[in-house]
């Protein structure tokens, strides 16, 4: 019965934790709620001007009553202009929280970016999103960064017509001073752009009158309304059939080529990633375990977790007798071990693995991995 006591928390303990948490989150909230923050505070410089977004050592924690959850714990990766970066991992590994940190849509006050920078390239200048105040973020959301959600039915409001919902985005971010007539015109254009033939009709429909694929198209139209430079697609095809998925992926690819936007593509389907992404980031328990180009990851997977993930998915045309399944389960997010998070499930452990969390090792020009197995290779190279 030992494992029963692991998660046991007395009421007094829980109250103490929540009191402490409130102290910490209040600090953060006070900082956020200041008025007239000078621009110099959140102005920053991109390390590489070809990048659209740079996540630099991002830490996003959730201060819950059972303890602090390190949802994102030191994530660093770049999104180049006009490229697609795929983020893969199991549910609960922090993929979505990473993207929500960029949008500053974390559930506050529990969710806070504790450390690190997210640099967003705005052309002539760059902002650190984590420090930007709310009114600045409002201009960035939708205009520069926008998001496509997983579940199109919950992302659309059931009591408003499609036209009103897309028009609302345009009116809120009315940078071009459009009149009502022009807003309608632009809405119809958007609907046609995402491949809805009967745009006039759909304009007047309610979400329940549309099929799943059509709804996802509407959500994409909404995300693209203000020509964003970065599109975050959070599992946009998980709720859809394969044939509809193929249509939506095709559409996203076309739109990306047309507008030269960058896409952050979050999914747990490796097949979709291979098709869409130029760069791939593999996350496990809040950290990046491996990143590189799509070729690096799919042809030379290095981290045991990536290898396990690849083997556990059946592939059409490849017959295997038994699927590989990664033993064990993800460690408790409140009490993360101080050694490699994957050690207890890993079948390729070496002696060093009981040491502290492995640092990132560069194994080729574009390929990074956090695993002790590649330490020697690095030292040999030096």
């Amino acid at each position: 019965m030992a494992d029963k006591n692991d998660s046991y928390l007395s009421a007094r303990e829980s109250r103490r934790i929540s009191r402490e948490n409130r102290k910490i989150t209040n600090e953060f909230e006070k900082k956020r709620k200041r008025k007239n923050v000078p621009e110099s505070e959140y102005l920053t410089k991109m390390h590489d001007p070809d990048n659209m977004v740079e996540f630099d050592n991002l830490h996003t924690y959730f201060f819950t009553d059972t303890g602090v959850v390190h949802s994102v714990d030191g994530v660093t990766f770049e999104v180049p202009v006009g490229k697609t970066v795929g983020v893969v991992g199991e549910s609960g590994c922090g993929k979505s929280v990473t993207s929500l940190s960029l949008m500053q849509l974390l559930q506050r006050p529990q969710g806070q970016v504790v450390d690190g920078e997210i640099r967003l390239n705005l052309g002539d200048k760059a902002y650190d999103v984590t420090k930007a105040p709310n009114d600045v973020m409002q201009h960035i959301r939708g205009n520069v960064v926008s998001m496509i959600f997983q579940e199109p039915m919950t992302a659309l409001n059931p009591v408003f017509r499609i036209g009103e919902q897309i028009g609302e985005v345009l009116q809120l971010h009315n940078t071009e001073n459009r009149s009502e007539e022009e807003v309608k015109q632009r809405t119809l254009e958007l609907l046609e752009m995402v491949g809805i033939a009967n745009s006039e009709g759909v304009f007047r429909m309610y979400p329940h009158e549309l099929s799943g694929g059509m709804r996802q198209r509407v959500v994409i139209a909404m995300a693209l309304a203000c020509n964003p430079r970065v599109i975050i697609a959070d599992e946009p095809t998980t709720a859809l059939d394969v044939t509809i998925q193929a249509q939506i992926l095709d559409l996203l690819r076309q739109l990306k080529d047309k507008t030269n936007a960058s896409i952050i593509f979050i999914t747990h389907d490796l097949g979709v990633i291979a098709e869409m992404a130029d760069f791939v980031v593999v996350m496990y328990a809040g950290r990046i375990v491996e990143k590189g180009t799509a070729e690096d990851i799919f042809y030379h997977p290095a981290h045991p977790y990536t290898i396990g993930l690849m083997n556990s998915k059946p592939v059409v045309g490849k017959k295997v007798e038994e699927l590989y399944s990664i033993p064990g389960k993800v460690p408790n997010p409140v009490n993360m071990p101080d050694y490699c998070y994957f050690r207890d499930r890993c079948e390729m452990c070496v002696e060093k693995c009981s040491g502290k969390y492995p640092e990132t090792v560069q194994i080729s020009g574009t390929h990074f991995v956090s695993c002790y197995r590649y330490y020697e290779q690095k030292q040999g190279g030096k």
Partner: protein
Amino acid sequence: MANEKSEYLLEVKNLKKYFPIKGGLLSHTVGQVKAVDGVSFRIKRGTTMGLVGESGCGKSTVGRTILRLLEKTDGEVIFDGEDVFSLTRQELRKMRTRMQIIFQDPYSSLSPRLPISEIIGEAVREHNLVPANEFDDYITKIMKECGLQEYHKDRYPHEFSGGQRQRICIARALALNPEFILCDEPVSALDVSIQAQIINLLRDLQKQFGLTYLFISHDLSVVEHISDTVGVMYLGSMVEFSETEKIFDHPLHPYTVALFSAIPIPDPNYKMKRIVLQGSIPSPANPPSGCKFHTRCEKCMELCKHVSPDWAEVEPGHFCACHLYNSAERNAQLEAEMKQNAAAQVKQAG
């Protein structure tokens, strides 16, 4: 005894299930949703049949009608030599232990108020499968077989993760010692690595107990992995049925071809010859005339728009419903019939 048993455990013949659409003041039946419209297949003992298709094509309705959770409109379901729909209540109750179901969503298919031992054991007690003094050991044995620990017995479903809940669902089905299990999208709600565990478990149990599965899924790669035969459904009808290797190596029906070409392959340099189907699946309340797929088909002929294709054995063991694979004479005959019908209609109108 064994010799008398047929090779096939389950035979479905021309099964139809229509749902009425009620409307009007006195809620007349104003139309019908043809959820399942003439489906036939059979499953050999100890094998797995995969059933694939887009959402809304009637896969789950087929499954539920086979188990007689829904009454049929027409057709026959023969389970081990007995017609499921001609059974009396008592006979059906006995039959229920022999055919079980695993649902898609392990979160909503377990009662939150019952401990695990009760969830698994309730039906066992109800059917008096084991004597009362062996009951506890029996539940423990079943749980161990499904990868659950003994101390899980007194816990409640909310204390388990998605993968473990699905194991509980499997244990619940297995506890009745069934011969046939209907798996209705059992892994769709799970993560990739958990999916692999559950699929492996299902296969192990099949080997151990000689179970027969009907595996409904829209994930084609999972279906390919687990099934011996595969049926493809479109808008209430079966369009193709064959052994897994045959159907994946060279699919015949244009819909199957398009469906398989849409599977994402985890290889960044894989060159796709993808056929993107335009539009979405038509409403089953008002299906297109002729071949139901003709509105989205690349190889649509004039004949397809008016005459629905025969369900024919194109190659040995490979069934397909498409005019493309008819003999020339048959097509000519159908075309002549079509013209005659058209002429008759013109005459009537005149």
